[in-house]
């Protein structure tokens, strides 16, 4: 009897585990056809380019680590498919080929370190990741020891590159976001009494908030209400009521769009209509299935990338991304940042003469030297990097009008 129980338990556990891995496996399988459909074209292109003059070189192996399953899967998948679009484009050029090694970390620092070890075993030479901040802190500490070059598309905490010469960012740092927001609000006199609702369980949100607060004090903006929530909060009535009761005419939301959508909804039921000001985490709110776009009318947000832009390169990227992502949704800034990360790594590698055979520690030193002078113009703006890994580029403010982004001030 005991034996049968043991077997049953084992079966249940295996099913549970399969459920866990199943999602990532199937999704990889889904993304494979997207990649492979381009592969013949790429192969054909490289055939004509090299015309049999030399044996095909080993591809450059770039690892993409991020949460492809779990609560933060949206961001990880955006990065993965954005990176895939860039890799497909580069491979179609016919020069050095890129092989992406995608590994799921479920937004968990420990799993992220495991994923990192897995991709190194698979021969990764550099890492475009990781997607989210807490795992990135764990992985980058390890990568600093091992000398593996990392360029994160989206882990925006200022702690990420701190003290690590091999850790670079494509996204803005959180402090910069907070400072820009305060400047825009003060310069345009958007509000005099500001309420802030932020996620105090999240480094990203708290980081932006703290810098916003410091800069606001300098610029003379009055913060009349500060309330917090955590990832599990479902009820925002208290936070919104606090802002309303304090008479705030602008609510600053340095948070991701899912809680932001709930806050907008709650404000509507309370007949409270201040100006809502979000940062890059707000990007994506219009893509939520079933979201009433009228709720977001007039919301201002800072983001380096707008899928509504009519810039030819963006239009092209949006189309390719929608083909690559099985859900067919429009790319958000995470996707654009990952796309830029792959191109930046590719450009730097080509300039530094890194090939598919360069060991990762050698590649790391070469890339560090390259990034000091690298200039790259991508989907998310003109970028250069400081020697401590921070990117310098300009954010843009957009206003949501009739369900699309309009440049702020137009």
């Amino acid at each position, binding site marked *: *009897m005991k034996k049968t*129980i043991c077997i*049953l*338990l084992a079966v*249940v*556990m295996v*099913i*549970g585990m399969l*459920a*866990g891995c*199943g*999602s990532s496996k*199937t999704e990889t399988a889904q993304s494979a056809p997207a990649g492979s459909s381009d592969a013949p074209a790429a192969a054909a292109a490289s055939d004509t380019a090299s015309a049999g003059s030399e044996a095909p070189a080993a591809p450059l192996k770039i690892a993409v680590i991020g949460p492809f*399953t*779990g*609560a*933060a*899967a*949206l961001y990880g*998948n955006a990065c993965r498919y954005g990176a895939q679009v860039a890799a497909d484009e580069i491979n179609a050029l016919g020069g050095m080929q890129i092989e992406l090694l995608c590994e799921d970390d479920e937004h968990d620092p420990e799993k992220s370190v495991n994923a990192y070890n897995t991709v190194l075993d698979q021969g990764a030479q550099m890492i475009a990741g990781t997607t989210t901040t807490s795992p990135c802190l764990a992985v980058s500490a390890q990568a600093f020891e091992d000398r593996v070059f990392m360029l994160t598309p989206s882990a925006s905490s200022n702690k990420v590159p701190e003290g690590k010469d091999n850790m670079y960012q494509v996204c803005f740092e959180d402090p910069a976001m907070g400072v820009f927001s305060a400047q825009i609000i003060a310069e345009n006199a958007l509000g005099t009494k500001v309420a802030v609702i932020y996620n*105090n369980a999240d480094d990203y949100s708290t980081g932006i908030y703290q810098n916003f607060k410091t800069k606001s004090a300098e610029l003379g903006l009055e913060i009349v209400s500060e*309330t*917090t*929530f*955590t990832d*599990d*909060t*479902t*009820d925002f*009535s*208290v*936070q919104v*009521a*606090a802002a309303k*009761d304090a008479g705030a005419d602008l609510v600053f939301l340095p948070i991701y769009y*899912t809680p932001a*959508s*709930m806050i907008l*909804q709650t404000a509507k*039921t*309370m*007949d409270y209509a201040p100006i809502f000001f979000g940062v890059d985490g707000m990007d994506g709110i219009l*893509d*939520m*299935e*079933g*979201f*009433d776009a009228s709720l977001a009318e007039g919301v201002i947000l800072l983001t380096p990338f707008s899928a509504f832009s009519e810039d030819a390169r963006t239009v092209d990227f949006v189309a390719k991304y929608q083909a690559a992502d099985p*859900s067919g*949704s429009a790319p958000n800034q995470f996707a654009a940042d990952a796309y830029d990360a792959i191109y930046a790594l590719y450009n730097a590698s080509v300039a530094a003469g890194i090939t598919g055979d360069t060991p990762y520690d050698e590649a790391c030193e070469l890339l560090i030297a390259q990034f000091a002078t690298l200039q790259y113009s991508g989907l998310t703006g003109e970028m250069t990097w400081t020697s401590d890994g921070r990117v310098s580029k300009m954010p843009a403010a957009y206003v949501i009008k009739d369900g699309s982004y309009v440049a702020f001030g137009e």
Partner: protein
Amino acid sequence: MVSFLRFLINGISLGSVYAIIALGYTMVYGIAKMLNFAHGDIIMVGAYISFCAISYLDLPPLLAVLLAMAVCTALGIVIEGLAYKPLRQAPKLAVLITAIGVSYFLQNSALLIWSSNPKVFPSIFGSSALQLFGGALSITSEAIVTICANIVIMIALTLFTSRTKTGKAMRAVSEDKGAAQLMGIDVNRTISLTFAIGSALAAVAGVLLCSTYHTLMPTTGSMPGIKAFTAAVFGGIGSIPGAMIGGLLLGVIEILGKAYISTELGDALVFGVLIIVLLFKPAGLLGKPVSEKV
């Protein structure tokens, strides 16, 4: 004063959702003596089913809720039959671990089917609100429906367990499985029925939760599930009125604590109160103290 009333009503509305979820926990625990940690995920499935019915099939909300209840009932029976029934004689720990496994299974299946992108649940009860004190206090239709549904469900369940034959069978099974079987009660059928009722309630809770807070993700059910479990323990696990009182108190404490003490301490307060109650009343507010025969 008006803002206090507003917070109180929000708290009761949130607490009503917790109470309906807690009923599922408490019934299953009372009868099968197991903690069904997958209960929170059945809520999520119920919410997704009704979301799909409303958004893709254009069904009227009532029909969507009934469909969600039917699917969740079937799901509850299947889960019970496949995952828990074979472990009926196994140690409690094995069943507990299995329940956690089922919970992950459901979450990840939902991730595969509906993807991780959050969906916005439509307002199904209309946007009209009850205005009091010249508009200073407005009570949303969601809050009214949630509170009413909670009361109706509570009365119906109490009548069901005290008046009907099946309800009495459930109580018998909860008191002594072996003796109930000797009296000619089909224990397995009764337990399956309990799962069916609990899961149907989970579907209702899912719809109420999501129509109030509007966001639907594969992890939507987990935190309310844990809070509702807390509510069930708080009120005395196994007791139906206990689940209701526990749920309501939990919701009110959470909202008032956030409003008047600190938004950062909302959840800490909830669990702090739980610890204090359990220190003084280890069986919960309405739980019966169990004397162990040695």
